[in-house]
């Protein structure tokens, strides 16, 4: 039987309840010309290790901005972002890039594979930033492709794969460095209902069987149902969603209280 994890540390859903993501009183303001446009205002969020969290909200509510802050792609205007114990808002650009390479796996709406490279080479791109031997790289690519169920399609170019398969390759690329956090920005936004279901099954399995902590931004309530917890972002404030779709706004909590 072949390996299906990168290290011995892969765990199931029973991971200890320690904070993977701790966002404290974060604000993010953009500028349109000289006009400041606040997108996130004094927002706090705590996400436990091994959690599968869905983040919903209308367009322009700041979902992607919050995702970018947590993934180390952007910096807050104020507040703190602590991921996996690292205060990433304090890291330099260069250190932040290295931190992303080691700790974050990205899954985007479009798989964005390099068309000239085979699936396995696309998966291997993040490994260019590591000092792994060629053999170890090969092993990791094989495992990642096996996890997403594409072991037999490694030599195929993206144009020879279906949309769902391309997204699976994108997920394998996100997994190949064995990151502690998977951030998924509308991972099923470009897929039909059946294929979306398959991708969501895969993400759920990664969370359940491989202990991956997953933060997923989505517009799709069906997709959000697969998460263990759903948060709703509106007007820069977070609210918990019930499984029946009801939104519970933390009206009595002080500003900045963690959800």
């Amino acid at each position, binding site marked *: 039987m072949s390996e299906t994890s990168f290290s011995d540390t892969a765990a199931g859903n029973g991971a200890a309840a320690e904070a993977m993501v701790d966002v404290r009183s974060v604000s993010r303001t953009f500028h349109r010309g000289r006009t400041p446009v606040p997108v996130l205002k004094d927002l706090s969020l705590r996400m436990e290790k091994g959690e599968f969290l869905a983040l919903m909200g209308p367009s322009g509510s700041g979902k992607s901005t919050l995702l970018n802050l947590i993934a180390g*792609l952007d910096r807050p205007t104020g507040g703190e972002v602590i991921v996996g114990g690292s205060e990433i808002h304090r890291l330099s*650009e260069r250190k932040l*890039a290295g931190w992303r390479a080691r700790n974050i796996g990205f899954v*985007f709406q479009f798989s964005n594979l390099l068309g*000239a490279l085979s699936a396995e080479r696309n998966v291997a791109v*993040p490994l260019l930033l590591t000092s792994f031997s060629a053999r170890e*790289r090969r092993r990791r690519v094989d495992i990642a492709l096996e996890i997403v169920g594409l072991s037999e399609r490694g030599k195929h170019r993206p144009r020879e794969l279906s949309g769902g398969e391309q997204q699976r390759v994108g997920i394998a690329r996100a997994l190949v460095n064995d990151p502690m956090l998977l951030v998924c920005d509308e991972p099923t936004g470009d897929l039909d209902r059946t294929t979306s279901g398959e991708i969501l099954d895969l993400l759920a399995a990664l969370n359940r069987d491989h202990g991956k902590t997953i933060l997923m931004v989505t517009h799709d309530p069906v997709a959000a149902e697969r998460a263990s917890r759903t948060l709703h972002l509106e007007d820069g404030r977070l609210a918990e969603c019930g499984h029946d779709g009801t939104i519970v706004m933390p009206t009595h909590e002080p500003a900045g209280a963690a959800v």
Partner: protein
Amino acid sequence: MSSFTLISAALRRKKTRTFLTFSSVVFAFLIFGVLSMLQTAFSMGAEIANEDRLVVRHRVSLFQLLPQSYEADMEEIPGVVDAMHMTWFGGVYQDPSNFFMQSPVEPAEYLDMYPEILIPDEAKLRWIETRNGAIVGRALVERLGWEVGDRIPIQPTIWRQQGRGDDAWEFELVGIYDSDVEGFDQTQFLFRYDFFDEARSFGRGQVGWFMVRIADPDRAPEIAAAIDATFQNSAAETKSESEGAFAAGFANQVGNLGLIVTSILAAVFFTILLVAGNTMAQSVRERIGEIGLLKALGFTGARVQRLVLMESVTMVTTAGFLGMVLAVGLERVLRPALAAYFPGLFLRPQDLLLGLGLAVVTGLVVGIFPARRAMRLETALALRRL
């Protein structure tokens, strides 16, 4: 898999555009190679000129004659080791298109003056024994299919024979010379001055120019001035200069080749900068999302900059290398075919190195602005273009 895999993938992204840009760079460097060859061919005389030789000609022009007696006067001037004379014969062999230089010389003096000439001793001996004997460079012999012993008629255009009207001069080919100096003219037709001087219908005792060997090349300007001073205010004043300056002046009669070649190359490379620069800029513009993805995956701005720069350098250097290889191939074809017309037509190693250096620099210049743009892209903004 290495960074080169990403570079290769980027170049293969728009194959047609890459191919067209690549081809234009290949042709630019082929033009560079060909023009370098031509420049070498025209400047070879000056380059292989011996520093210890001076050329003394009539002050008015090369075609005005000087008294042969000047030779003895010059040999008296301090610093002059030896002097010998040559004369432009300007005859035609069969057809005016068969152009080659012919000159009457004193055999022993000529061979002393030009140690670059390699000729067997028996050929030298035959030349001295045969009054109408001539020695010819190997390139000319091969071009015209002559053999030692052939009798060669040369139709006069200047120097007619006394009492023989337009009759051809008849020479006997007694030897073939070679040279171990790259680019040395192997298309000369050299015959005996005594035979020429006795038979010509006019101008007896007059010669075209002198070659003067001096003891110390550092004193060349001083000795040249002394020679000119010796014949100042005579009926035939002289102009003396180093062999290199004379050859360069002769080549420049065609025009300032260096300037012409440099101007053409500047235009070609400016165009290449625009063409390849536009390709790279467009390529980066189209890949903003992809670059954002790489940065999201952990590639630093500096690393992304290096990737784009390497992409540009790889494309231009590979194309430049191929262009120079084609130029070398062309040289292999043209050199033997044109050796009798352009003895110095070849691609010098320093020109090859210059071409490759130019390719690397062009690649860097072409890539630097798109690379900096890629480096500065904000990851989160770039990802919106996915």
